[in-house]
């Protein structure tokens, strides 16, 4: 099986490439990236006017299996990922039962292997049952294929447990992915605390609820030399804390979601439950700080926090609605339209944030087009204009505040291990 991708603009930040080139794939590997390649026996893909990038990685998704298959399962989530231009996703352990032991991690790997559309790396729990008390058996989780640990959805409220987790995970080179939220400060909160929470009469979640925990965890990372990664940062203060920690040489990385980069708390107007997410959509000043941090390189990657929900969890009173946004199928287009088109990010920066950024955090051998590497590629059509139609999502979760938005720049083809798995938003086979 040979594929020759001809005439596309190759953007491969790891190798400093941004030029019209051809890419040859053989037996699931990249074998050549050169100008004007010829190969008579290969299937030719005409990628003229398309962008040819290393396969995109989303290091923060919720695939809900096992236990909540009515929201999403590994097959539907993999299809959503492939259609959305991702070749690799990391799934969070807040399943039922939680991914806090080898059996569940192996189950996830096996189900993903059978679906065979994208690479699925499980993330193990930091603590047993994600309860924040006893450490999970991390050596076992690593052996079963976990690439990081996290209690995502919940913070590790006990500072002593977080300290031990950072210390212990260090042995395996495992990043500890922190969901940073002081539950006492955020209690019963429905949206960002600020002008609009006053207007809409909803209990606010102050930026400080996120920032005090990030400050604590940075100090613990400094204390332990552990590898801290802060999930879905959403505030100006978070950016400042992480920038400062990086300058001091503390091992900390972070991610941001497309929705926190694009949508402000004003959109809660009318109480559309699709706007409810944790951390909440923040105000414009925070969005500006996040965008600036992206440009500066303080933020290491973009991740969706893909959180599919069943209709009943969203078609209800705002206060009762489950927080979360189904993000896999809008992530690339929303960033292309709202950040790349207006020139806030250039293409290399955007590709880096979706490829080498997460690959380096996780220590996985992905994210470049270097010859010899696994042939995972994401091809984009930067000119394609489409409207977000949740009813057409492959994900079971139709919950997105981007619904009805017209966006320019969409995934055109997803290639995993040399095989085309999605084309123009449609799953192949």
């Amino acid at each position, binding site marked *: 099986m040979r594929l020759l991708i001809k005439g596309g603009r190759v953007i491969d930040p790891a190798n400093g490439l941004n030029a019209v080139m051809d890419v040859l794939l053989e037996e699931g590997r990249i074998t050549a990236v050169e100008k004007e390649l010829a190969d008579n026996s290969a299937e030719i893909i005409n990628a003229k006017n398309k962008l040819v990038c290393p396969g995109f990685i989303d290091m923060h998704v919720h695939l809900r299996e096992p236990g909540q298959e009515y929201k999403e399962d590994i097959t539907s989530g993999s299809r959503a990922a492939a259609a959305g231009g991702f070749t690799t996703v990391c799934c969070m352990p807040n399943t039922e039962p939680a991914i806090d032991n080898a059996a569940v991690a192996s189950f996830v790997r096996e189900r993903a292997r059978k679906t065979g559309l994208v690479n699925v790396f499980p993330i193990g729990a930091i603590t047993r049952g994600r309860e924040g008390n006893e450490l999970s058996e991390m050596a076992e989780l690593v052996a079963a294929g976990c690439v990081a640990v996290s209690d995502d959805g919940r913070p590790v409220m006990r500072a002593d447990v977080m300290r031990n987790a950072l210390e212990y995970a260090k042995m395996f080179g495992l990043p500890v992915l922190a969901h940073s939220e002081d539950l006492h400060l955020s209690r019963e909160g429905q949206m960002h605390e600020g*002008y609009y929470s006053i207007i809409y009469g909803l209990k606010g979640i102050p930026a400080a609820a996120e920032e005090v925990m990030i400050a604590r965890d940075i100090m613990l990372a400094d204390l332990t030399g552990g590898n801290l990664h802060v999930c879905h940062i959403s505030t100006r203060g978070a950016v400042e804390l992480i920038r400062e920690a990086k300058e001091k040489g503390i091992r900390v990385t972070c991610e941001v979601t497309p929705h926190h980069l694009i949508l402000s708390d004003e959109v809660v107007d009318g109480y559309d439950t699709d706007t409810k997410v944790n951390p909440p959509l923040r105000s414009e000043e925070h969005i500006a700080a996040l965008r600036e941090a992206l440009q500066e390189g303080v933020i290491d990657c973009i991740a969706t926090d893909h959180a599919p929900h069943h209709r009943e969890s969203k*078609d209800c009173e705002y206060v009762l609605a489950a927080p979360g946004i189904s993000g896999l199928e809008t992530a690339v287009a929303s960033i292309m339209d709202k950040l790349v088109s207006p020139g806030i990010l250039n293409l290399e920066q955007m590709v880096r944030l979706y490829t080498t950024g997460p690959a380096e955090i996780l220590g996985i051998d992905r994210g470049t087009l270097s010859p010899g590497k696994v042939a995972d590629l994401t091809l984009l059509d930067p000119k394609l204009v489409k409207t977000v139609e949740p009813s057409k999502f492959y994900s079971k979760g139709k919950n997105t505040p981007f619904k009805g938005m017209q966006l320019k720049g969409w995934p055109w083809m997803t290639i995993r291990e040399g095989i085309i798995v999605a084309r123009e938003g449609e799953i192949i086979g």
Partner: protein
Amino acid sequence: MGFEQNKDLLGLRELSRKDIELILATAMPMKDIIRRDIKKVPTLRGKAMVTVFYEPSTRTRTSFEIAGKYLSADTVNLAVTTSSVQKGESLRDTIKTIEVMGFDLMVIRHAMSGTPHYAARNTRMKVINAGDGANEHPTQALLDMFSIKEKKGTLDNLKVAIVGDILHSRVARSNIYGLSKFGCEVRVVGPSTLIPPEIEKLGVKSYYSLDEALKGVDVINVLRIQRERQQVGLFPSLDEYANLYMLTPRHLLQARDDVLVLHPGPMNRGVEISSDIADSNAAVINEQVTNGVAVRMALLFLMMGGSKDEIAD
């Protein structure tokens, strides 16, 4: 034709000054009906309304009910806490069930902000918000404004102080939105834990000192303080609250001589308001209740009155 085209009354934030004036003007003849010996007009005969209260309430629910009855609408009260919620029914299904019984209008109260908006999106019935969480309580603000206008002759450019738990108060929000549309200077006063700093972006002035806030005001609206706020640590004790914010005759010296004192009820005498004030001539607290019926009659009339064609039939 202004308000008559609105399907729902969800808040005063989105209501125009013209609409508010129409409602208040319509409430005046309604108040006359209440004072009659025979308190019934056939205007809404054949119309049906239901009150759906997810929070306990006596005066607001009764007020809507009697307002409907004076206008000859068929009125049903649903005490939701004792029925569908216990059976696990979703709000959407409860609303649908009510709708298909043929009701024209639903009055809803709910502890969660935005619930009337959700209800309105999911039904053909007209919806009146009778208080949702900390968001709005539009009919309370309308009756407050009616009471002020009746006593002061105008709403324009008055100085109004709202005292108490501004953070959690739907009455405060609706009053702020409504009064601001008439150029009023609205002041809010209370302990700093209950006065969100962003509130000033709504065009109000915030104060922590009751004396300062009351200087030269035409109207004082005293909010009910809820005991559970103390339990979650927003202020240390009811005693301390009363020492700082209970309205007493001494405070009235700061205000204009003809100051009007409002309270949405029910009152905690000795906590947010002293009996001396509650029972004084400055207070119009009982008259507010009567005005509440009049304002709700006006709303029901405007929302369910039907077209001229129907009257011609």
